[in-house]
């Protein structure tokens, strides 16, 4: 997927100016937050479970090559084919090749963020394979001219009921419905036909279990089971960091993932899929492929950003982020929004291509507090800011301003003179009022709020006066 992260600032301002989006974000805010807060209380030792999950994810990432080899060996022995993809283009090539090899005309898909990274749907269409998204949210986006998702688990969270009602009416050419059950039924009817006629199913993978060569899928709609069992070919596309050693580890992570993501004790469906259809099996694919994707991940191993690879894609960081809650996911411009996206997008698409994202956070650490695998997201964002300075990617005036300010702040006399003038200037600007409506030195501040007037003298001069 082409990144529009460079335009974060204008994207975010457009989001603020969109009343429909603002209304939808207000409705969505709180739902995930409240549900998570309730569901984590079901676990006696939530903090201990987070620590355990962090430790097990770290163990894997530190020996990623070994666990991947183990997974490949066992998955292959169970009849699967394991392929490796360096980047999005290679994902597309693999899937198209598999499609051609098996004579595929139609592929049904359950949710896969990796296929978003690759822009897979467009590549399949170009190769004459019809991709059909079957996650309800992803389906809505696909029939809306391939709109990108705005959230990693709730892709259509930015849309309201009315928009979906209009869209179904227009695309399905059916009478407009405004009841959610009626709309979902309509989608089911459309999708059922696709499930029965597709020859290929494409899914993501929440985890790869090395000891059994399995993929674990965590879903709520049941479409994942259709996609992975009905078609004769199943292609799993997932990142190399998703491997975990054992089923025991899966159970630890499953205590955290649904609770952190949607506030559910367990998602409606948890599938652990192993190997191809064996003699005597009633269903399952005849051919099973794993496409394990690097796309920037291997470079993060061993770097100062390695903590990020623990991510289990629950979305809690964005659900709790004051910035995400205010502007939604599209403003971030690539596949992953919110705090995790503001770390991943520069790491996977180039630091210079996502200059604003590491700064698009107040560093309030709400994300770090809720992260089920304890990724220090604000610290990683700050490190990315430091990388930008090291690589001379910041605007010159900002760099000069900081140098100048640091120099002045380290010379107390000069600092005293500077603040003496600054405070009087600000006081003069306020002109006897409580606040300053337009501040030339910080125009961004006064775009949406006033700047309070200072008292009129600095503490240091008042304190010196009091003592004497």
């Amino acid at each position, binding site marked *: 997927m082409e990144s529009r992260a460079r335009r974060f600032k204008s994207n975010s301002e457009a989001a603020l100016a969109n009343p429909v989006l603002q209304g939808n974000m207000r409705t969505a805010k709180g739902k995930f937050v409240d549900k998570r807060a309730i569901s984590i209380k079901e676990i006696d030792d939530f903090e201990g479970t987070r620590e355990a999950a962090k430790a097990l994810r770290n163990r894997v990432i530190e020996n990623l090559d070994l666990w991947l080899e183990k997974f490949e060996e066992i998955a292959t022995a169970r009849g699967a084919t394991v392929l490796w993809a360096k980047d999005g283009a290679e994902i597309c090539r693999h899937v198209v090749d598999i499609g051609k090899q098996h004579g595929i005309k139609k592929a049904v898909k359950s949710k896969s963020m990796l296929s978003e990274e690759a822009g897979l749907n467009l590549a399949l269409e170009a190769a004459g394979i019809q991709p059909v998204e079957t996650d309800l949210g992803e389906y809505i986006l696909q029939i809306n001219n391939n709109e990108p998702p705005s959230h990693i688990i709730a892709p259509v969270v930015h849309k309201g009921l009315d928009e979906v009602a209009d869209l179904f009416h227009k695309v399905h050419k059916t009478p407009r419905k405004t009841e959610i059950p009626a709309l979902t039924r309509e989608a089911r009817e459309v999708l059922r036909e696709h499930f029965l006629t597709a020859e290929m199913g494409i899914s993501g993978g929440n985890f790869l279990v090395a000891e059994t060569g399995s993929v674990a899928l965590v879903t709520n709609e049941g479409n994942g089971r259709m996609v992975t069992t009905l078609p004769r070919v199943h292609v799993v596309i997932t990142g190399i960091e998703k491997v975990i050693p054992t089923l025991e580890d899966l159970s630890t992570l499953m205590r955290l993932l649904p609770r952190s993501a949607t506030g559910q004790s367990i998602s409606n469906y948890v599938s652990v899929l192993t190997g191809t259809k064996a003699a005597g099996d009633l269903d399952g694919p005849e051919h099973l492929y794993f496409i394990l994707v690097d796309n920037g991940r291997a470079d993060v191993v061993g770097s100062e950003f390695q903590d990020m690879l623990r991510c289990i894609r629950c979305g809690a960081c964005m659900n709790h982020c*004051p910035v995400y809650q205010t502007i939604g996911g599209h403003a971030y411009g690539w596949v992953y929004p919110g705090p995790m996206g503001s770390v991943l997008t520069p790491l996977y698409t180039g630091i210079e291509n996502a200059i604003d994202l590491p*700064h698009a956070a107040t560093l309030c650490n709400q994300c770090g507090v809720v992260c089920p695998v304890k990724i220090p997201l604000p610290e990683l964002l700050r490190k990315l*800011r430091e990388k*930008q300075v090291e690589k001379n990617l910041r605007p010159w005036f900002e*760099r000069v301003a900081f140098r100048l300010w*640091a120099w002045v702040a380290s010379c107390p006399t000069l600092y005293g003179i500077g603040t003496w003038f600054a*405070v009087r200037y600000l006081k003069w600007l306020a002109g006897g009022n409580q606040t300053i409506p337009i501040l030339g030195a910080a125009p961004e501040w006064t775009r*949406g709020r006033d700047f309070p007037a*200072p008292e009129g003298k600095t503490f240091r001069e008042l304190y010196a006066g009091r003592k004497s």
Partner: protein
Amino acid sequence: MRVALFVTCLVDLMRPRIGFAAIELLEAADCEVIVPAAQTCCGQPAWNSGDRAAAAKLAKKVIAEFEGHEYVVAPSGSCADHIRTEYPVILADEPDWYARAVALGSRVYELTDFLVNVAKLVSVPGNFAGRITYHDSCTGLRSLGIKAQPRALLAKLSGVDLQEMNGAEECCGFGGTFSVKFGEVSAAIAERKCNNACATGASAIVGGDLGCLLNIEGKLRRMGDTQTRVMHIAEVLAAKE
């Protein structure tokens, strides 16, 4: 107890009365207050903007100025945390400075935390009365655990009626340089905070970090609210009205 006051650059420039209120509160807790005269800024804006060199330069300045004191207290959770938690990170590659940063860090406190847990202030000097609501600033709350301390101090004022707002622990949208990089987003987050605060019917919004308070005050005034007061906890505790 001898306490060095770290005034903070924002209090120095914008609200000196918070600094004097802090001195009064510390003295009410039988502390001898020293205000090192050459202090400027803790360097947090530089560190959060990725400028390690500038952050290290100011960190060393603060360490040299304050390490001789028994305790260091700041009327800001964010500045106190920066000195306490981040200085050792900033200076990790310089063993001597790192050791000095760690040694200083353990003696640095946010004002309300110090008054409650170290100085064990018995009664507060002020007589503020009225309905207030308290905004928990992010760094103080999530890094230093400042939550019960300001409320324990406010409870000592019999005339104060504390009404908790919805989302008291949610960010106000300030975020330091965030507020001047993405002004509109920052102000939109502040609007949510102001609406939640005003819904309590409070006559004053109170907090422990001036950055957040300036953000909230600026948004309130822009929204046309000229009545609701925005006050630092030190001002409230020391106010004689």
